[in-house]
């Protein structure tokens, strides 16, 4: 049985903001299936009582003092912008509202 369906891949592409083509969907569905079946091997390891590792460096409490440092100039900040207007980054009309935070 396939680990992932073409529809699921299409959903992942939408979540990832990738306007993939139909041909790509066919290709990715097959490839991701192979990869997922291979990586699913991690499930073979008995690790129920093992703590997860998110950081290999055992550091804690790395903080910065609350001191102002120089900013970029607006010109530098906007230098890479595909489009700008009134010293702001211009984007096309937004469909969805910000629903988080």
């Amino acid at each position, binding site marked *: 049985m396939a680990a992932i369906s073409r529809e699921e891949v299409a959903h992942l592409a939408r979540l990832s903001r990738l306007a993939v083509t139909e041909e790509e969907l066919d290709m990715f569905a097959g490839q991701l299936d192979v990869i997922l079946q291979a990586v699913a091997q991690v499930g073979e390891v008995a690790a129920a009582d093992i703590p997860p590792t998110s950081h290999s460096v055992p550091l804690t409490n*790395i*903080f910065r003092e609350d001191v102002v440092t120089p900013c970029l100039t607006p010109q530098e*900040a906007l230098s890479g912008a595909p489009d700008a207007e*009134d*010293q702001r980054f*211009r984007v096309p009309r937004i469909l*969805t509202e910000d629903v988080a*935070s």
Partner: protein
Amino acid sequence: MTTTLPAYDEVVARYEPVIGLETHVELGTNTKMWCGCPTDFGGEPNTRVCPVCLGLPGSLPVANKAAIEAIIRIGLALNCSIAEWCRFARKNYFYPDMPKNFQISQYDEPICVDGYLDVEVGGETVRIEIERVHLEEDTGKTLHVGGATGRIHGATESLVDYNRAGIPLVEIVTKPIPGTGALAPEVARAYVTELRDVIRTLGVSDVRMEEGSLRCDVNTSLNLPGAEWGTRTETKNVNSLRSVERAVRSEMLRQASVLDAGGRITQETRHFHEDTGDTTPGRSKETATDYRYFPEPDLVPIAPDPAWVAELKAALPELPRVHRRRLQQQWGLSDLDMQSVLNAGAVELIEATVAAGTTPAAARKWWLGELSRRANESGVELAEIGATPAQVAELQGLVDAGKLNDKMARTVLEGVVDGEGSPTEIMTNRGLEVVSDTGALTVAVDEAIAANPAIADKIRSGKVAAVGALVGAVMKTTRGQADAKTLRELILERLGVQG
């Protein structure tokens, strides 16, 4: 939409509300959460940005120690447990005001958990349980262009300014608050007010709702008595204390009308409208959002040293509730009187006025009387009325010195509120001062006696109460600048009558 809403009394008779509040507080640190850019309000667009808060490729966050300290202090003030070890997490979703298209936040490991805040509503203490307090970063600001309203709907393009992006944001989430019945809107308001006062006392934020440094989302649901809690809605865009109360009330009414008609409540985000006082649904999401939280790999865990936490706890300032109790005692007020001071939002104003040398009774008289009346009339918060505690103290000083009588003091206070200057300036400019020169006053009294022989005879014959008519007459000729008590004595003296 002109659905007729049911009456509030009926709603609370039939349904039980459950509310919950999520409050965001922008910390007043010098710099942003992850970089050294300044956090000042305002400023030309994109002038307070760097590779980190713009999310440029390769940039990395480093946590601001002052923000960590601030949230721990907030947690302690809200009686929370401080986590021994916790991490930041990434909340993944695409939105242009978020430079990295993920927000660094906290997920299942908030730094402060399980606290409470006691608030007073209608003389009762209500304990609001705090579920969590966590730290995250603010977003940039998006300007919607081309639409009629400046809102997202109908706009043809949007412009983004990242000055606000990355400012440390503390999110305080209550547990669901059941059992408040008809008082739910007031409880919500009292909670936000108390929270604001606590945070202001800590000095970690200016907590100004109008500038957005304190923002509130209100969750509301209704259920039939004894039934399970209903589906909740989340109301955003609640930008003043008054709106908190109105938003809960309006959402209770709306939900009741839906339920009454046999409808079901949709779990959704709604927007509160300051002008109409009602809520409208936010645009629904394309699919259920999956934020794919995972531990932020660019930051290391926080493990606050217990000694540090203890030190911060010991150094907490006197919190508003304790402070108020102490003031109540000092001012000698009954619970009821104290409650009216609280309701008027006058505690700090009176306290400052007393600190400037006025008696508590006098300070309370001005703030709860004349000034509260003016504030109500013009629909502003008492603190925004335009008179300062120092001015009120100055005014009372003039009264105590006998330079102003009560009526004149009211006139001067009107001038202060209208921005005419200090009490002394207004008194001088308007020529308002108690006539204390007895010579001039004696002439005026004698004139009045001469002009009102019948009344003068009455008084002479023992009807001392009639003296009021003469006092009024003299006041008229002196344009009110005489001290009524002095005047009364003078008239009786000139008539040879014992007062």
